[in-house]
């Protein structure tokens, strides 16, 4: 029961062409940059990426798009300070976009992790984002039926992990991480610190280890926004 892996490269080495990959983060907060870059190093193609956004600058998910690895993005907000990678690919028809309201995206991922195949939400009712989806009325109000969202892999950034995969996050870097850990067949976590089981107070665990498959230490993890301010480029 030791889920630690040696390095990001090893932890993402089996992600094949065509995989669906949830990637934690909201903008730069919680973005698992080192795992993403390890994945680009390998370069599987035809990926479906699930993230709140669609990349910023020339690192992370933007660099995945630039590398031509991404067939489809499921996200709520494919805009950023420097969205050129996604924008160019999208406008050229090289990438498919499934636009999902942010709360619906979060709830679909949670549903995937919680064994709830479908649920009803008021969000998007009566809008074009509900087109083609079943609707129903409850207590006189209209709702849209949304389906769960699962993935083959999740790449998530945590602050501290123990060897059993229990996780705590850092500030608003938590965002989609706990949900994606639940919803992927294989969850890969980069943690700034890996500790022995018992070192995280059981009351403070945010993601119980049962949702986590692989943990890799990245003690010098960089923050995506900091990298973008520096003008970093994946290479």
């Amino acid at each position, binding site marked *: 029961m030791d889920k630690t892996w040696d390095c990001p490269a090893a932890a993402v080495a089996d992600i094949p062409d065509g995989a669906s990959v949830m990637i934690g983060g*909201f*903008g*730069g*907060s*919680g973005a698992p940059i080192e795992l993403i870059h390890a994945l680009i190093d390998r370069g599987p193609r035809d990926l479906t990426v699930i993230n*709140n956004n669609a990349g910023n600058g020339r690192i992370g998910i933007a660099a995945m798009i630039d590398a031509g690895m991404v067939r489809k993005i499921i996200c*709520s*907000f*494919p*805009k*950023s*300070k420097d*969205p050129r990678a*996604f*924008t160019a690919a*999208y*406008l050229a028809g090289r990438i498919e*976009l499934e*636009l*999902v*309201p*942010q*709360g*619906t*995206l*979060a*709830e679909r*991922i*949670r549903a995937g992790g919680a064994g709830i195949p479908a649920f009803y*939400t*008021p*969000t*998007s*009712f*009566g*809008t*074009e*984002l509900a087109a083609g989806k079943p609707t129903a009325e409850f207590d006189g109000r*209209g709702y849209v039926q949304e389906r769960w969202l699962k993935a083959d892999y999740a790449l998530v950034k945590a602050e501290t992990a123990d060897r059993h995969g229990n996780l705590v*996050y*850092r*500030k*608003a*870097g*938590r*965002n*989609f*991480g*706990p*949900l994606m850990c639940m919803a992927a067949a294989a969850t890969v976590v980069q943690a700034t610190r890996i500790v022995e089981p018992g070192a995280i107070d059981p009351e403070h665990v*945010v993601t119980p280890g049962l949702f986590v498959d692989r943990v890799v230490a990245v003690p010098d993890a960089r*923050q*995506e*926004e*900091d990298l973008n301010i520096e003008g970093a480029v994946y290479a």
Partner: protein
Amino acid sequence: MSDIANIKLSNAQIAWRAAQDIEDGSYVNLGIGFPEMVARYQVAGRKAIYHTENGILDFGPAPAPGQEDWDLINAGKKAVTLNPGAAFFHHADSFAMVRGGHLDVAILGAFEVAENGDLANWSVGKDGVPAVGGAMDLVHGAKRVAVITDHVTKTGAPKLVERCSLPLTGVGCVTRVYTSLAVVDIEGGRFVLREKLAAISLGDLQAVTGATLNLDGPVADLIVPEL
């Protein structure tokens, strides 16, 4: 009509006016961009707790330049600080707060608001890259959904309309609109004028509004400080 540009409220003044209606003890979500400005004008002596979709309750203003922690940001991806009593949570819990009706008020921007309460604020149509973020969730859930907006577009077209022409964010969700010229409630599928700038006549205001402004009692002067 050329007066409007001269008499209209600044964005700061619109934000100030919206802030006056936030009651003590309210949980508030401010849409990204212009609505974020409302927090600057929080009424002294009242405590509002701000929620951001990305998982913080009770965040405070931006830190001093150079002090940014980019893991501590709001939905607009701007660096923020924490107030005592803040909490972090994940995205599903965050939108449980939104969708579950736990916010007292959400204040959003608008491309168009219709007299039936429909709001369009996420897409200008088919071109470019569409992006929706949390807007469609916010319009369903907050006990009160208010809009702050210029009264007309940059080209002078009405933003308060009979029916939205742009893709909807939500159906029948807006209950009050704070514009650069007036405060308008939406009640029973109609615009009801509550306040207007003294400097504009009712006729001139109606002329730049795309649907009937109904009256239901006296119309107060919209009075806002210099900011």
